[in-house]
């Protein structure tokens, strides 16, 4: 084994989802159920992941409850010793399924909230999802799961941050993740509609800081600034191929869930290789591991061990070269692209909703 072992696996069980959020982190070119991995491959993936050091498993999607075998997959993950989180919209989180998931050993439920105002929430989700949240939250509390609420923040809901925080506390969340939209995939398509103004960002930061103190010891609040408003890029998942793995619904293994946008990379599949081989040897994981791939200004920068050059997907999406410095960095020669996008936020556009491609009927 290499010195560094993965700690976290995100299992994107399906791209099917009843919601159509315009900032979805799934690829633009979505496929439906036909290509999804069968139960027995997922259980092998979980077992192999644990054997190479993974401790945390996120069961995600799409909407993971769309998989009828979710309970069986959860039981397997629990059996091999993974700490298991369900990442859900709450649509389909019925009392029967919730109890079955608890019996299967699920540790933690993470429910997304789109906004506190139902009309706005449903406009963001592209469906009537808001009414599912409160009954699901009550079930999560009643069954004793660890409970996180996550909220993707953007222009349309950022001004209600304080009410959103109080609402999450009233629902009984142990943790609240407030993450500003990151602009990849669908969110990049919808950037002009989603991008908040600098004033909104400044106000929300103050609201979040005060709430973090107010709720300390009762509800843990994590507030993530949009990287477009920071001076240096984020260390994407602790650096490429350092701790994080994603398995897509069709079995391709990615160093982060946005990596499919980098069209110059080819991703190996768990149908053909073990998780250990992929972690250690697949070209996609080796591509940006370490710092040999870096160009200037990253190569000679003392921050390269802090942020690892930032996000490869963002570098590729904005500059067409994944080895470039993340343009979010003020030292990047492409930083003007970020400044321009911030200015464009003054003229918002309508959403382009996330939809699966319609699959051709079998011949």
């Amino acid at each position, binding site marked *: 084994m290499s010195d560094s*072992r993965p*700690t976290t696996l995100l299992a994107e069980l399906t791209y099917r989802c009843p919601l159509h959020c315009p900032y979805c982190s799934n690829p633009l070119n979505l496929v439906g159920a036909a290509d999804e991995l069968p139960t027995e491959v997922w259980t092998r993936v979980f077992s192999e992941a*644990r*054997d*190479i*050091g993974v*401790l*945390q498993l996120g069961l995600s999607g799409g909407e993971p409850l769309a998989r009828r075998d979710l309970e069986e997959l959860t039981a397997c993950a629990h059996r091999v*010793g993974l*700490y298991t*989180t369900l990442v859900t919209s709450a649509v389909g989180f019925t009392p029967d399924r919730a109890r079955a998931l608890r019996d299967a050993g699920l*540790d*933690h439920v*993470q429910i997304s909230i789109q906004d506190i105002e139902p009309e706005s929430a449903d406009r963001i989700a592209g469906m009537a999802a808001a009414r599912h949240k409160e009954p699901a939250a009550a079930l999560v509390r009643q069954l004793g799961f*660890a409970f*996180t609420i996550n909220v993707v923040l953007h222009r349309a809901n950022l001004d209600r941050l304080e009410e959103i925080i109080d609402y999450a506390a009233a629902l009984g969340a*142990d*943790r609240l993740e407030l993450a500003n939209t990151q602009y990849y995939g669908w969110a990049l398509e919808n950037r002009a509609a989603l991008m908040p103004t600098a004033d909104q960002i400044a106000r929300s930061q103050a609201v979040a800081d005060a709430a973090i103190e107010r709720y*300390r*010891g009762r509800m*843990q609040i994590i507030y993530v600034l949009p990287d477009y408003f920071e001076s240096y890029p984020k260390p994407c998942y602790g650096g490429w191929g350092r701790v994080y793995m994603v398995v897509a619904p069709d079995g391709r293994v990615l160093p982060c869930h946005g990596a499919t946008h980098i069209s110059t990379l080819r991703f190996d599949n768990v149908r053909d290789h073990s998780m250990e081989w992929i972690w250690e040897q697949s070209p996609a994981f080796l591509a940006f591991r370490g710092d040999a791939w870096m160009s200037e200004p990253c190569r000679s920068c003392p921050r390269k061990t802090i942020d690892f050059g930032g996000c490869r997907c963002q570098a590729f999406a904005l500059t067409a070269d994944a080895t470039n410095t993340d343009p979010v960095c003020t030292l990047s020669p492409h930083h003007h692209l970020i400044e321009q996008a911030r200015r464009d936020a003054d003229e918002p556009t309508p959403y382009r909703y996330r939809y699966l491609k319609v699959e051709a009927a079998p011949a």
Partner: protein
Amino acid sequence: MPLTPLSVPTLWRLARLDFDRVRQQHVLLYPEGAVLLNDTGAAILELCDGHRSVEAIAKILGERYNCDVEGDVTEYLSQLAEKELVRVG
């Protein structure tokens, strides 16, 4: 709240102490996170049962290792309390 010798530390309700057979190391697991523990850290956390005080935990470990560990125990638990992984009653 600063930790005193009479504070009674408990693990966060959502944190779970486990042994990772892959790394041959104790680990504290919680939603979206994990802390790898050395043997001393694990020994301290195993004694955080919601009844023992910092002083009582330090006394047990002091006898086990045959030296005064109260300062180390207090500092270690303070760090975890700062991260809200240990709660102080």
